[in-house]
């Protein structure tokens, strides 16, 4: 039996795609079963890091943003030889590079995700807006117009407004979108003018969002028609299909983010741990190969509207059935990585993320100047690591 803990086992879309891969693998390997079981996302990183460090890991290692913590244990098997032999690298999208550490491919990415602008077209029309915003200035103006037109109980903007790891991703999307990064040219650029401008816009919009909500909370409000606009992951399209009432769902639309750049988020990746037998490693590699087949790669597009890792896995039928997939493909094509190009940033991500989360909460809950908060943040990040 192969152990396969994942935080996505019960997630809509992700869970179904993973179960299909498991079933196919089991059907091809008589007597081998895969025990896929859910672990909460909050506990997943600690649990897997502890197991990897103790030399007693599960057989199949899934990761999202946890990847760098897992790689940091030095207990992920390089896949270079296997990837080369199978020829998979030639058929894989460039975002696979996000899983390369010191020249070693430590995981195979299943798909990439991006952020989209979601809006309720009824509220936009009521605010006198013919189309969704296409630039940061238009976005700020649109949210201001919506604030003046939406009724009581409806918020013009939705964002995470509680201590949560989403704050990193949501603020980074504004920074990268407006041409910045946390680190540029080997220096911390937290107080660079473009970062301050981007974070200030992020702050002004997030202050219009209902307070105290995490991603699940404001997505539900968007689905219920109680939020007019938000920027969120493309996987939210399928969530809206599930949670939004029939009279609201047709009004909810997705558009590319109104920024110069968009952000690519490397989604689920699969790795082989060092601390298992060679026989098990071979079985896990066969599992990864099943997941890499075009049929299952196409499922990521169908189930969570993601851009599959394997080039050309989205069929024209899927695009016809799901027009948002074209927006996703168009957005990802020009996307920038979410993380800056810095090994130190990745190695110390847990601590860096915590400081960024605290700074964003300070921006949302106090009147402190944005530049002053970011100056403090830069000083904290500098004390954590060299850029």
């Amino acid at each position, binding site marked *: 039996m192969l152990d396969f803990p994942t935080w996505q086992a019960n997630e809509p879309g992700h869970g179904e795609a993973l179960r299909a891969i498991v079933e196919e693998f089991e059907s091809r390997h008589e007597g081998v079963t895969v025990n896929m079981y859910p672990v909460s996302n909050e506990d997943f990183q600690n649990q897997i890091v502890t197991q990897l460090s*103790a030399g007693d890991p599960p057989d199949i290692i899934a990761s999202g943003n946890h990847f760098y913590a897992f790689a940091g*244990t030095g207990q992920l098997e390089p896949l270079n030889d296997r990837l080369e032999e199978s020829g998979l690298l030639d058929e894989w999208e460039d975002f696979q590079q996000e899983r390369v550490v010191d020249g070693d491919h430590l995981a195979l990415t299943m798909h990439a995700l991006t952020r989209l602008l979601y809006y309720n077209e009824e509220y936009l029309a009521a605010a006198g807006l013919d189309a969704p915003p296409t630039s940061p200035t238009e976005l700020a103006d649109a949210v201001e117009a919506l604030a003046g037109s939406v009724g009581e109980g409806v918020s013009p903007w939705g964002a995470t407004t509680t*201590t949560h790891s989403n704050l990193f991703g949501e603020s980074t999307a504004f920074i990268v979108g407006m041409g910045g990064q946390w680190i540029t040219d080997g220096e911390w650029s937290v107080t660079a003018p473009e970062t301050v401008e981007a974070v200030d816009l992020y702050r002004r919009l997030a202050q219009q969002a*209902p307070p105290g909500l995490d991603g699940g*909370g404001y997505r539900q409000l968007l689905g219920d028609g109680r939020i007019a606009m938000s920027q969120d992951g493309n996987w939210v399209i399928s969530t809206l299909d599930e949670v939004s009432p029939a009279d609201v769902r047709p009004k909810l639309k997705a558009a590319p983010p109104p920024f110069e750049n968009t952000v690519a988020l490397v989604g689920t990746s699969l790795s082989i741990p060092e601390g298992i037998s060679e026989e098990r490693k071979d079985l896990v590699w066969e599992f990864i190969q099943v997941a890499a087949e075009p049929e299952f790669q196409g499922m990521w597009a169908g189930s969570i509207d993601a851009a599959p890792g394997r080039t050309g896995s989205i069929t024209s039928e899927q695009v016809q059935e799901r027009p948002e997939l074209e927006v996703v493909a168009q957005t990802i094509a020009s996307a920038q990585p979410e993380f800056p190009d810095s090994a130190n940033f990745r190695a110390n991500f847990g601590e860096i993320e915590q400081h960024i989360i*605290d700074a964003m909460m300070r921006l949302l*809950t106090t009147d402190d100047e944005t530049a002053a908060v970011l100056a403090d943040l830069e000083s904290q990040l500098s004390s954590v690591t060299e850029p």
Partner: protein
Amino acid sequence: MPVVTDDRRKAGTPTGRPGRSPWRPSLSTRNNLLSYMLLAPSLAMTLVFIAFPIYMIVNLSLRDGKTMIMSEVGDLPLTLGNYDSVLADPDTWHSLRISAMYTAATVTAAILVGLVTALLIRRRLPGRRWLRTLILIPWPIPGAIATVAFVWMLDGTYGVINYILRMVGIIDQNVAWFFDPQTALIGVLMPTVWSAYPLCTLMLLASLQSVPDELYEAAKVDGAGAILQFRHVTWPAVQNTAVLAMIVTGLWTFTTFDFVYAITRGGPDGATQTLAVAIYNQAFRFFDLPHASALGVVTMVLAGLVLLALFPVVRRRFF
């Protein structure tokens, strides 16, 4: 008849009893041996489950470098640098202040609620047995479940607490309890107190039940009203137990982690970052076990100092 002394037994002098081996241990030695044998399992458990983890934490706290692999700990050089950085870190003192406020507020509220509920269920009210069960229900409820319930009740958009406060006119607009640094600690306190007060109720009720009704009747005859009866009859009877309940609840609260982490993760902007959450973050978010261990040792020492300071009070009341 010669008197057999311990000195003679020690010297191997025959005691006059037939068949007694000179090498046979004395009764008191055998008793001591038996005592140690009976204590051995407990001592072994204590060594394995208390002493060894404390040794590991102290050992880790004196190591220079990050590792999550226990077998590599011994290879790291020894240092006092972790204590330097912990004591020089303003976050440590901030967390200590939050822990102290959280503990003091929880203990005060739990004792007050516990005393009120104990007085209530001591009365011969109809349905007293049901009431007693109802009041004690929060005690066995796991922290995670209580947390989920309170997060819903205190939600800033649709929470029932905001609804009730608006209905009775205490607030005009919904309070986002866990969003605002001014109210986040209050939001976290509510489930903590809810979970802590039943133990206080139980302890105080046991004390109250030992007060004879005649004392209250005599106080009434002397013209004492409810407040004077509480001051001169009830409080003297329960004050020793109240001190014990405060210490037990205080120690429990000082190390409580689940409520705070599950609700706010120490936020917003560190407003609820207790020492327990800070230790967790260092160990399992930043994977810096030596720093987390040093912080753990400092926390242990602080808790020990508070207990030492309270010891004269406890000795005066209980021994």
